[in-house]
């Protein structure tokens, strides 16, 4: 039977036995879960047994290529990795979440599809360091002794690209090898599976890298039909006023708004702009980089041209991430910020996640709240030298670094402090073991930021919508929601003003944005492209239908998005998560003191303060909109039956 859009195979790799198995993809699953991460979630449910140790061989790594990856659909380059995160999410009881990371890819995604694979499932643990080579029909577990402990993420990628011309590479660095719980895997140097510790899970398996190279190509069912909708989408993107700014400065194109919205209050907005604004970024820009198929192009590569760290080159990290780290650590020279970022990139360490504990401890030291006795004799004066020293210690798990490498809850326990209560400035708020990147006290409690609190995995990217960019009008927001295939009733509920919020109901909206984000995960399209409304669900349904030959309406796609949201939730309900874990971080209810005055949590249009009672009501509304039990925040039997997920009813708590 001819298969279109999909590549047709799932690859199972057992690193313990050294065995490889290829299984044809069950297209019945496409009807229920669309493909890509939707099927990945189904695999995660089947393979990740509740309560397993995330760093044990039984924790699988499931890599799902979006269905449209390998076609011409704009931004269809994303792959999603699903795994149990080694970052402790709650301390009493101790719970770990099933996390996922999404990565835009320049070569890996289409190479994997062109080689013939939609999904990779990696289990077990190799005795020796290895890399996985996927080369059309040849799939091999290869010796990585020359790479492990020797080559950083970029060097590993260079070696493997040289060895297998044209390939894509996923690589970990020393941080993953040493099981730092928020280490990352990088993809084709620019992409990252960020924050939840995929690097450590790969490291725990002695898996240094994955190489994919494919020459079979991706077939589509109706090329003319696909071409028509893709041309329409491409034309819209090409006409967009965002195109040129993105080509110049990548995601920093939103800086005129982001400098206030992503501002941590350490500096004034004016000073922040001076150190990390557009001129500063351009002074260190080396190239613009797009993921495969992406017209927008949100990434840039860096080079320090002169002065401090002259000659330094690094390829990973959006300008906004660099800026946030720079502000929080008070690195006035963007070149110092790049030095920090580069060290993290090469070690495969989440720079944002690492900068939080480092910021916290150095501030405690500066305020004499901790002593050198507690820091193992280290003088933690706030300077680049200290930060780099601490990074080295985290990456190598030495001394205090060994503590910091384990994440917020374990750091707090070991130091006898509580970071969630103490570290309230510039943290974004700590929840489920991670610090949010987007802080509603400066951004506003939009549906996106609220969605971060309730999403099982606090994902700033997946909650993407028009609200994730510079502020837009209510009409524009309404247009965005109309393009998410919401029903008339849903639309009315979202845009009925709420006295405890504002002109729309951010909580009800969050549910639909989440569903659309999951559609993007299934298809492999990018949330950055959804910010300027380049990815309306009707277009995506047309792309999917044309590519696969499986006729799908926007409403059907929306339903699948909802189904995947529910299944992903069930996987985490099985691990013990419920409403209490979705409650807003304490920090959100305290102001950030900024040079412009206190910044407090307000609605998206900053018309009123959001207080605890409002938050409580908003959470009620989110669960109500989901059709879940409001008290527990857990899907109901009725909702699972409605979605055709009856087989998961047994996982609901009694």
């Amino acid at each position, binding site marked *: 039977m001819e298969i279109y859009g999909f590549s047709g195979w799932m690859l199972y790799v057992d690193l313990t036995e050294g065995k490889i198995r290829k299984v044809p993809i069950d297209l019945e699953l496409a009807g229920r879960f669309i493909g890509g991460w939707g099927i990945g979630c189904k695999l995660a449910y089947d393979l990740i047994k509740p309560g397993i140790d995330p760093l044990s061989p039984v924790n699988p790594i499931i890599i799902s290529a979006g269905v449209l990856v390998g*076609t*011409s659909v704009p931004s269809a380059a994303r792959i999603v990795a699903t795994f149990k995160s080694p970052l402790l999410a709650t301390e009493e009881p101790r719970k770990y979440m099933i996390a996922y990371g999404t990565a835009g890819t320049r070569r890996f995604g289409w190479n994997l599809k062109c080689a013939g694979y939609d999904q990779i499932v990696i289990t077990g643990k190799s005795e020796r360091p290895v890399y996985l080579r996927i080369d059309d029909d040849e799939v091999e577990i290869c010796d990585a002794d020359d790479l492990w402990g020797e080559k950083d993420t970029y060097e590993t990628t260079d070696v493997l690209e040289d060895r297998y011309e044209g390939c894509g590479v996923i690589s970990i660095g020393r941080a993953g090898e040493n099981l730092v719980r928020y280490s990352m895997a990088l993809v084709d140097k620019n992409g990252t599976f960020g924050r939840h510790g995929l690097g450590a899970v790969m490291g725990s398996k002695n898996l240094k890298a994955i190489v994919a190279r*494919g020459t079979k*190509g*991706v077939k*589509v069912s109706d090329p003319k039909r696909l071409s028509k909708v893709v041309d329409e989408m491409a034309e819209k993107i090409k006409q967009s006023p965002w195109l040129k700014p993105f080509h110049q400065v990548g995601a920093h194109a939103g800086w005129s708004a982001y400098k206030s919205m992503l501002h941590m209050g350490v500096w004034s907005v004016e000073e922040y702009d001076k150190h990390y604004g557009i001129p500063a970024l351009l002074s260190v820009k080396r*190239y613009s980089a797009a993921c495969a198929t992406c*017209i927008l192009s949100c990434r840039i590569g860096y080079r320090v041209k002169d002065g401090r760290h002259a000659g330094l080159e690094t390829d990973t990290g959006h300008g906004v991430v660099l800026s946030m780290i720079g502000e929080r650590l008070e690195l006035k020279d963007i070149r110092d910020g790049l030095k920090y970022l580069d060290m993290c990139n090469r070690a495969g360490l989440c720079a944002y996640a690492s900068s939080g504990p480092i910021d916290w401890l150095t501030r405690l030291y500066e305020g004499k709240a901790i002593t050198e006795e507690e820091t193992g004799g280290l003088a933690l004066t706030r300077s680049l030298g200290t930060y780099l020293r601490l990074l080295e210690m985290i990456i190598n798990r030495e001394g205090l670094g060994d503590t910091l490498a384990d994440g917020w809850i374990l750091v707090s326990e070991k130091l006898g402090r509580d970071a969630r209560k103490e570290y309230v400035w510039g943290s974004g708020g700590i929840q489920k073991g991670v610090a949010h990147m987007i802080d509603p006290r400066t951004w506003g409690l939009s549906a996106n930021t609220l969605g971060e609190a309730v999403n099982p995995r606090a994902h700033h990217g997946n909650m993407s919508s028009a609200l994730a960019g510079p502020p837009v009008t209510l009409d524009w927001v309404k247009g965005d929601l109309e393009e998410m295939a919401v029903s008339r009733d849903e639309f009315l509920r979202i845009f009925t003003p709420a006295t405890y919020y504002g002109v729309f109901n951010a909580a009800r909206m969050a549910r639909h944005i989440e569903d659309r984000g999951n559609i993007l995960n299934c298809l492999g399209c990018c949330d950055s492209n959804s910010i300027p409304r380049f990815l309306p669900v009707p277009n995506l349904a047309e792309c999917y239908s044309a590519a696969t030959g499986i006729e799908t309406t926007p409403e059907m796609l929306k339903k699948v998005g909802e189904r995947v949201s529910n299944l992903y939730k069930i996987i985490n309900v099985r691990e013990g998560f419920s409403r209490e874990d979705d409650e807003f971080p304490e920090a959100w209810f305290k102001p950030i003191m900024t040079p412009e005055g206190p910044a407090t949590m307000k609605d998206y249009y900053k018309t009123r303060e959001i207080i605890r009672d409002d938050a409580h009501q908003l959470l009620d509304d989110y669960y109500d909109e989901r059709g879940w039990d409001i008290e527990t925040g857990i899907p109901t039997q009725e909702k699972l039956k409605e979605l055709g997920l009856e087989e998961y009813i047994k996982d609901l708590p009694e």
Partner: protein
Amino acid sequence: MKEKKSIKTNPEACTQCLRCQLYCSFHHTGVFNPLKAWIVIKPGEISFTDECLEKCTLCTLYCVCDAIISQ
């Protein structure tokens, strides 16, 4: 690899989105297959394979950053 007079290249402007490779490969093989494209994109480098037809400038229709321009 060869020079191609019908296309002016500007590798510095290339974002490596590979739309050119996707469309080129689809055009002559019927499937999307960047590694079979007749235009080859590497960081700082744009080149054409020996099979690439001198008069064909199809790829330039899909470039969004003027890295390849029909002459």
